Structure formats: structure tokens, C-alpha cells
């Protein structure tokens, strides 16, 4: 929701001629599509898909935590560094590359967590029985 608000603020800023920097457009879209929509899809699916371990702990939901951390760290790094990457600053360039890796890792960790939970009703019942 924070990224949703930030993207909307960026969208408003972009409407003023004094602030029409080309770098704002990808930031607007990524905060909206990754920070808001993708993150809400991830959060809801982790909660509602079958096969969730009801006992909450870092160990039980490790891949979900990793996906959450990587996605948000990656996106925040991107928002901070992308406007400055046009300058010949190796520090910002390295941080932007790190943000790219973190965002891809977030997708990988989320898929590792959710893939085994895409179950048919029969599989879901069987899994529940095994867990007891």
C-alpha cells in the first residue's frame, strides 16, 4: 500500500512540466506493478492457497520472508539509485545491479514457496492428512 501511494504521488509529480524526468516513468510503473500489484498477489496467495503451515515462524515461512525482503529491498534500492545512474557513479551502478538481482531472487523465492501449494482438492486433503 505504501508503494501504491508512492506510485500515485510519482504519477501526480510527472504531470508537472518542471518534473518531467524520463527516469520517473519506469519508477512509477515498477512501484505500481511490482510494489503494489505483485506484492498484494504474493501476500494474498501465501495466505489463501492450500498447504500453508498454520504455525507462523521464520523457519516455517522462510521462502516467503526471503521473497518479501528481496522484493522490498530491491525495489527501494532501485527507487533510490535509478535516478542517479546516468551519472558516471560506480557506486550507484553497482547498487542498481544489486537491486536487479534482488528483484529476480524475490520471484525465485516466491515461486519456491508457492509452487508446491498449487494443489488439487484431492492433493490438498492428502497433504493435510500427512501433516497430522
Amino acid at each position, binding site marked *: 500500500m505504501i508503494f501504491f501511494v508512492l506510485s500515485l504521488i510519482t504519477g501526480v509529480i510527472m504531470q508537472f512540466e518542471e518534473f518531467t524526468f524520463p527516469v520517473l516513468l519506469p519508477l512509477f510503473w515498477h512501484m505500481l*506493478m511490482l510494489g503494489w*500489484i*505483485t506484492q498484494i*498477489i504474493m501476500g494474498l*496467495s501465501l495466505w*489463501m*492457497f*492450500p498447504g500453508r503451515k498454520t504455525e507462523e515462524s521464520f523457519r516455517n515461512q522462510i521462502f516467503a520472508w526471503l521473497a518479501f525482503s528481496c522484493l522490498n529491498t530491491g525495489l527501494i534500492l*532501485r527507487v533510490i539509485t*535509478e535516478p542517479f*545512474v546516468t551519472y558516471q557513479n560506480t557506486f*550507484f*551502478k*553497482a547498487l*542498481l*545491479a544489486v*537491486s*536487479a*538481482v534482488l*528483484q*529476480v531472487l*524475490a*520471484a*525465485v523465492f*516466491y*515461486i519456491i514457496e*508457492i*509452487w508446491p501449494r*498449487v*494443489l*488439487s*482438492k484431492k492433493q*490438498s486433503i492428502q497433504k493435510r492428512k500427512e501433516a497430522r
Partner: protein
Amino acid sequence: MVFQSRLMIRLALMYFLIGSTLGGLILTNKAYHFDSSLWELLPVHIEFMIFGWIIQFTLGVAYWILPRFFGEDGRGKTWLATIMVLLFNLGIWLVASSQYGLLPEKGALIGRISEAAAVAIFISLHWKRVLTYNR
């Protein structure tokens, strides 16, 4: 979770992985400029992330979770839902492939029509499933 939903969700996850990887490459290239031709991946990145991932995942979950009709055919005609999945994914690949001249010019148009047809089927299958239990 029904077969069509599982299929759509798994396909969406694959598009998410491929789309994110393409996006990661484009972003890294923005920092280090190692190959300018990587920018050509941008339309596929957008197509895979918006249509392949976000929209397909949403459609798959909606097909599974919206209220069902009474009786055996709880989600309507299942063969129609399978056609919806096929048309939607065919559309994505037609649009993506036509970006690189792999298909004739009309490829993108046919792809978009295919996606639109899939969405029309989705609407026809779900319109009456959007309801209140108080009726």
C-alpha cells in the same frame, strides 16, 4: 483447486520467472551498458509481466475462488475454460514473437484478438458467478 486454475497459476509463475529475469537483465544493462540489444527485450518483459503473470494469475484464482453454481457443473463448461487458457497463452506468445519479426505483421493483431477472445470467454463464464448469497 481445479485443473484450469492450476494450469493458469503455474503458467503465470513461469511467466513471472522469465519476465523478472528479462527485467533483471535490462536493469543491469541500464547500469553497465554491456549490450544495447537487450533493450529489445523490453516489450516481451512487459507482455510477460502484465498479461502472463498479473492478469493470468488473477484469472486463474478467480476461476477457482468465485462462488460456484449448484450441481456438478459448478464453474460452467470446463472445456470452455480450457479453451480460454489456450487462447490467452497463444495470444501472449503471438504478441511476444511478433516483436522480433518471427511472425508476419498481423501476428500481434491476431495475438491481441486471441487474448481478447479469452477474456470474453472468462467474462461469459464468470458473469453469473459474481453474486450475493442474500438473493
